[in-house]
């Protein structure tokens, strides 16, 4: 009988206690006495280093529906480089424009001749997918942090493929400051937490 081995330990007492609580027998009793915590950490997996993964996967830029390609309209319109407030078209943007608006306007970022392109200060044209380069002209430190995943948000795998968001996914380029958010509900006050489960609650209300 296995029990003999363990009589000297505290186990018989334990069994007594168990008996009182209505638990009991097991073929593993003697093993429960076996206090050798041989810790099991062996593993064959190797972490994939983030080094070497240079891929930057970004979602498509959030262009307003039906507005791109811009040239569909603009190729018919004579380009007017004069700085002014837009009234008939794009007045929605005029209404919210708040991005150093004293000093800047459309053509500081959009190209005069090819509206499907952005334009760097150097004159170089730029696809909307690379708009972060344009933002980085002024916000160099943010661009530096964004590239390493510290400014902005990355999703995916910490040791593998990640997805970046472009600056403009979070910041409206025409009004980049964040809007305030509605917070999720606060935790229940300690004194209002009920420790009854649904069944007990039902019973109580009966």
């Amino acid at each position, binding site marked *: 009988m296995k029990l003999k081995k363990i009589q000297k330990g505290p186990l018989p*007492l334990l069994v007594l206690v168990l008996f009182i609580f209505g638990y009991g027998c097991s073929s593993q009793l003697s093993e429960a006495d076996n206090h050798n915590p041989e810790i099991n950490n062996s593993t064959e*997996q190797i972490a994939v280093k*983030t080094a070497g993964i240079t891929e930057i996967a970004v979602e498509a830029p959030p262009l307003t529906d039906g507005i791109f390609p811009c040239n569909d309209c603009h190729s018919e319109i004579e380009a007017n480089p004069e700085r002014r407030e837009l009234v008939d078209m794009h007045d929605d943007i005029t209404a919210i424009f708040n991005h150093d608006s004293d000093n800047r306007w459309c053509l500081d970022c959009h190209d005069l001749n090819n509206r499907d392109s952005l334009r760097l200060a150097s004159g170089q044209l730029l696809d909307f997918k690379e708009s972060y380069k344009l933002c980085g002209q002024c916000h160099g430190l943010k661009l530096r942090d964004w590239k390493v995943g510290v400014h902005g948000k990355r999703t*995916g795998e910490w040791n593998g493929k990640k997805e970046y968001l472009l600056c403009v996914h979070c910041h409206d380029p025409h009004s980049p400051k964040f809007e*305030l958010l509605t917070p999720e509900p606060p935790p229940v006050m300690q004194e209002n937490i009920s420790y009854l489960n649904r069944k007990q609650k039902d019973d109580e209300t009966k």
Partner: protein
Amino acid sequence: MKQNKTRRSFLKNISLASMAALTATGCNMKELDEFFQRNFRTLSDKEKEDIIKNLEQKYKQKYNKEFQVSAQPAMEQVEFAYALDLSRCVGCRKCVYACVDENNQSRSPQIHWIQVLQMEKEKGIDFAHSDVHYNPEKVPEKGHFYLPVACQQCRTPQCTTVCPVKATWQEPDGIVVIDYNWCIGCRYCMAACPYGARHFNWGEPEVPEEELNTDVHYLGNRPRVKGVVEKCTFCIQRVRKGKYPSCVEICPVGARKFGNLLDPESEIRYILENKRVLVLKEELNTQPRFYYFFGV
């Protein structure tokens, strides 16, 4: 009866009697096996496999759902760390509820692993004057900043040293875990943790069936029962598969950063090397793996 047949034989007899009595009442062998199951760290791979198979069956019966229970061990050459950008967090509490969903926290009685504390900019980090119940129309509120707190995954955790049954320990990748089968619910660890990061199931935890996350880890988000302690595990079920924790993925302002401290190219290393970083209650020498930083 002879006098020397005293305590020892009495105990022996009563144990035998108890066994007989229980067999007679037809107690379920599986439940007994579970009751006598040893500490998770002492189990062989085979034993773990069996236990997990039984668990999956049990959950299927109890919750009517197919669970995938993992016991995936720590990866080599990985030490996890977390960094939270105090200059970005707006206190929206989206992380709190993403965590509840991912980790099957009880909805009632309510358990939140993440506590978002609102603090006054004028006072700085001041727990005594912080508010966890703030509830304005919109956040962030003027003159305030927000400091979410969950388990800090300490390098010298006090919770594990006080546990009388060693039901909680630090894994090789730094995650402090709990064996819910071994936890006796004494709550010593809750008293020892300086961050209020541990939570006790005072009642039978309740999660609506349709909201259960069935992708679980044995040492993490598997369903708990009344009487055990639980806490953040950096989403062990996700991060050991390479995924970011749930709170990282939900945060609308990208305040939450996570990665491998041993990888010099990781975001986390960049933050430690280039940003102003702090840990909470540094003077206690808990040496958290959870850092707060100022990204601006």
